[in-house]
């Protein structure tokens, strides 16, 4: 039945038929639940359909039931890898509601931990990418060296991944001089290792063969499809929230926005490695210029009535939090827009063959991995009828109809 329909609607190819290959929601190539339907013509991928709404956790609704302090730890659990970016964004939004500035030393610590988390996220991604292209040696070595930064984060914050360092009004822990020395030593090791991996990525024939010319995203398409973060920068567009809309101390701490012009997976590998090297330098700058003083100001539990938007450059791209307060101790509405959600249209673009380049089935895993997907961040809304035990999601048409109705 389906084949007949396809033959009617699509033009006949050399293979007579298009096939639909379902990948997911549970699939060895994917680390998280997502469903991709690839339309293939022989080995060529000619179309892709994405569904990521398998991991709805109701976090935005749960935020409205908890007070501002409890929400820090809930926000942190939207995404394990970018937990620092999420708490930082949340803390900034709530501080904006209060209309208060935090001490300078707290800003330095926030920035430092944010950049450490970026190093850890990018090295994790480099390992995953190496694994996806079948270069497991590189994967093992990168993850071994990632332990250096994990240990530093554990020492500074008290936990390897879920840091819980940012809080409303500053940070929860100070950095001692002893810790500073250790971070400096760790940064030296990391810089040396990252420079080595950069050399490997540039010279190794395996990396080159699997990454060059794969998953091309042209700058025009990247801007049209609202790509963010390293995905956008690898297409040669100079865009970084840290530069365009500086938060914490990004206007003081010098850094370069890394771009690369080959627009493929290879560019994304190099952009991430170079960004990690920039982060190493930023952490060093923070350690050298950190002033003395308080790390936290006391703020009341309930912020005044108002709304706030805060933006952070998470390791995966631009992260936006919106908060609305009605003067009570719980937020009235909270909205999170995560970078993976923005990058999904670009993935469909990368995975569709064009007249000038082809996508093969074997390139699917690394192209998917190249945006550093984190699907658990994406599903935001679903409907549930408790009495009937039914769950459903609105289509774009229904959503538009609802929007126009409510506007009237």
């Amino acid at each position, binding site marked *: 039945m389906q084949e007949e329909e396809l033959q009617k609607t699509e033009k006949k190819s050399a293979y007579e038929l298009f096939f639909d290959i379902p990948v997911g929601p549970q699939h060895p190539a994917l680390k998280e639940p997502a469903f991709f339907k690839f339309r293939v013509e022989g080995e060529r991928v000619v179309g892709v359909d994405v569904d990521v709404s398998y991991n709805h956790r109701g976090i935005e609704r749960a935020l409205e039931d*908890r*007070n501002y*302090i*409890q*929400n*820090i*730890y*809930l926000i942190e659990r939207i995404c394990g890898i970018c937990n620092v970016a999420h708490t930082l964004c949340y803390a900034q939004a709530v501080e904006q509601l209060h209309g208060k500035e935090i001490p300078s030393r707290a800003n330095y610590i926030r920035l430092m931990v944010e950049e450490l988390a970026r190093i850890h996220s990018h090295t994790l991604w480099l390992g995953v990418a190496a694994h996806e292209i079948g270069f497991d*040696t*590189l994967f093992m*070595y990168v993850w*071994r060296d990632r*332990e250096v930064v994990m*240990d530093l984060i*554990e*020492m500074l914050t*008290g*936990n390897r991944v*879920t840091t*819980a360092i940012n809080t409303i009004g500053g940070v*929860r*822990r100070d950095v001692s001089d002893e810790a500073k020395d250790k971070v400096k030593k760790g940064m030296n090791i990391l810089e040396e290792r990252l420079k*080595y991996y950069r*050399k*490997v990525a540039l*010279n*190794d*024939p395996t990396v080159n063969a699997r990454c060059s010319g794969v998953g091309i995203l042209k700058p025009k398409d990247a801007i049209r499809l609202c790509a963010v973060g390293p995905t956008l920068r690898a297409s040669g567009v100079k865009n970084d929230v840290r530069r365009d809309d500086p938060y914490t101390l990004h206007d003081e701490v010098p850094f370069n926005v890394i771009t690369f012009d080959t627009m493929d997976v290879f560019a994304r590998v190099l952009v991430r490695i170079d960004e990690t090297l920039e982060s190493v330098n930023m952490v060093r700058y923070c350690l050298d210029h950190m002033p003395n003083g308080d790390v936290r100001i006391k703020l009341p539990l309930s912020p005044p009535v108002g709304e706030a938007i805060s933006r952070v450059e998470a390791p995966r791209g631009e992260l936006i939090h919106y908060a609305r307060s009605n003067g009570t101790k719980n937020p009235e509405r909270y909205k999170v827009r995560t970078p993976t959600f923005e990058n999904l249209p670009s993935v469909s673009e990368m995975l569709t063959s064009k007249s000038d380049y082809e996508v093969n089935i074997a390139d699917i895993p690394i192209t998917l991995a190249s945006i550093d997907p984190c699907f658990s961040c994406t599903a935001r809304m679903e409907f549930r009828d408790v009495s009937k035990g039914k769950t459903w999601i609105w289509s774009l048409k229904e959503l538009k109809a609802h929007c126009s109705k409510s506007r009237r």
Partner: protein
Amino acid sequence: MSMLKEIQKSLFKKKATVLYPFKEREKVHIPEGFRGKIVFDRDKCTSCLLCARFCPSGACEIVTDEKGKRPIFHLELCLFCSQCQEVCPKGAINLTEEFELAAFDRKAFTIR
């Protein structure tokens, strides 16, 4: 091919992994300030109940004993965020460096 030299060098180095539960147990380095198992001091507690008010996961249950109201901590619900330690005005709650918390009995997860 470019990594061959590195691989050769690593052949003669010590292993990077620690055989944690079986060997070299003492070499698992836990830094100072690690957020592990909760320890509660009943004598310092003044029944202000701030810990239960700020616990994000409901791991902190309030019960009444002979001295009055007090918290009980359920480690199976705990996030180890140390918010309770932070809000406690008397320092009655402390997170220790103990991290081996798996147990066969559910009662072992309740801190009194």
